[in-house]
């Protein structure tokens, strides 16, 4: 069953009530709509493994994608994603709710991935996932491959290989910013919260990373 969660302060405002709301109000749970993350986190902190399972299902794809684009290796991404959520469950007692659960678990994933990449150093082993067939219908990609690329015979798979190799040439902080912004679609502010730096740093890293990628992939961009 799904539940709706409404912030009590917004509810009282909507109803025109002047009653003061407590400093940290409990969310109102309405049956039939998705449960708010905060409710699931609280249940998980009380040992409800089912609630944590729901949190995993919500964020597993995004966490996996981030780790995968950082490592360019499915097996490593699989291991690191599992370890991220296991670590998250073990550390859930210390989660105070200062940030969203999503940001918090992302931080764990990013730290684990960067530590892993530092240990792996130059032993880069690329194991790429298959490209979804929908990519062939993406107008941007179709245009990029067939019209504007000098090497018109290049396929998406080859372009994928080149792109991933170019990504692996970036330093971890630059690769991370490109992954989170250009692939995952996170805002500069969200990235700043995750990697603990200000927006200016995020912007400059993004600019430098794009420049580097442009240099590495110049043959495919003219």
């Amino acid at each position, binding site marked *: 069953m799904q539940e709706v969660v409404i912030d009590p302060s917004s509810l009282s405002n909507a109803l025109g009530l002047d009653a003061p709301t407590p400093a940290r109000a409990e969310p109102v749970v309405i049956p039939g709509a998705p449960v708010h993350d905060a409710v699931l986190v609280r249940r998980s902190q009380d040992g409800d493994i089912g609630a944590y*399972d729901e949190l995993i299902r919500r964020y597993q794809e995004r966490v996996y994608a981030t780790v995968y684009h950082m490592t360019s290796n499915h097996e490593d991404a699989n291991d690191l994603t*599992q370890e991220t959520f296991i670590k998250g469950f073990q550390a859930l007692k210390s989660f105070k709710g200062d940030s969203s659960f999503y940001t918090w678990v992302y931080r764990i994933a990013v730290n684990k991935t960067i530590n892993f990449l530092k240990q792996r150093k130059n032993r880069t082993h690329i194991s790429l*996932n298959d490209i979804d067939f929908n990519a062939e219908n993406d107008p941007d990609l179709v245009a990029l491959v067939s019209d504007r690329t000098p090497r018109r015979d290049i396929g998406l798979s080859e372009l994928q290989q080149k792109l991933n190799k170019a990504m692996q040439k970036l330093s971890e902080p630059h690769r991370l910013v490109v992954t989170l912004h250009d692939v995952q679609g996170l805002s500069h502010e969200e990235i700043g919260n995750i990697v603990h730096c200000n927006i200016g740093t995020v912007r400059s890293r993004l600019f430098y990373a*794009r420049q580097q990628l442009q240099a590495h992939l110049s043959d495919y961009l003219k």
Partner: protein
Amino acid sequence: MNPQADNFEQIRKLLSLKKYEQPPPGYFNQLSARIISRIEAADMGRTTLWDRLGFAFGSKPAFVCALGVVVCGLFCIGILSTLQGTTVSAVASSPELAFGNQPMMSAPEEAHSSVDPVISQTSPFSDVAPRVDKASYTPR
């Protein structure tokens, strides 16, 4: 248009290719179950034999219990030592208690009580004549 911005636009389009890189079909259907089973396995690994047998209890009650045992022990030791002290003092004040109805050996004249030290006025070595042996040396 700024050529650099245009190139970045192309980079962004190219990076959109990565969104289409997908893990094997059904991967995400099993991922959470795998993670949960690992969490539960880790929890099981942390439980001790006492936990599994149902004898697990919190550390705080155990500490309180141990403290109670120590306090009781100290109390018993205190009582016993007090009783022993009473017996010793009773024996000291009435020697009959220590020897029952048996007749006591007569104490020396010099002794004032059984606990007072007996100090003899005469030296026990006064009757012994000092013996001095001279070493003899006969040169060859």
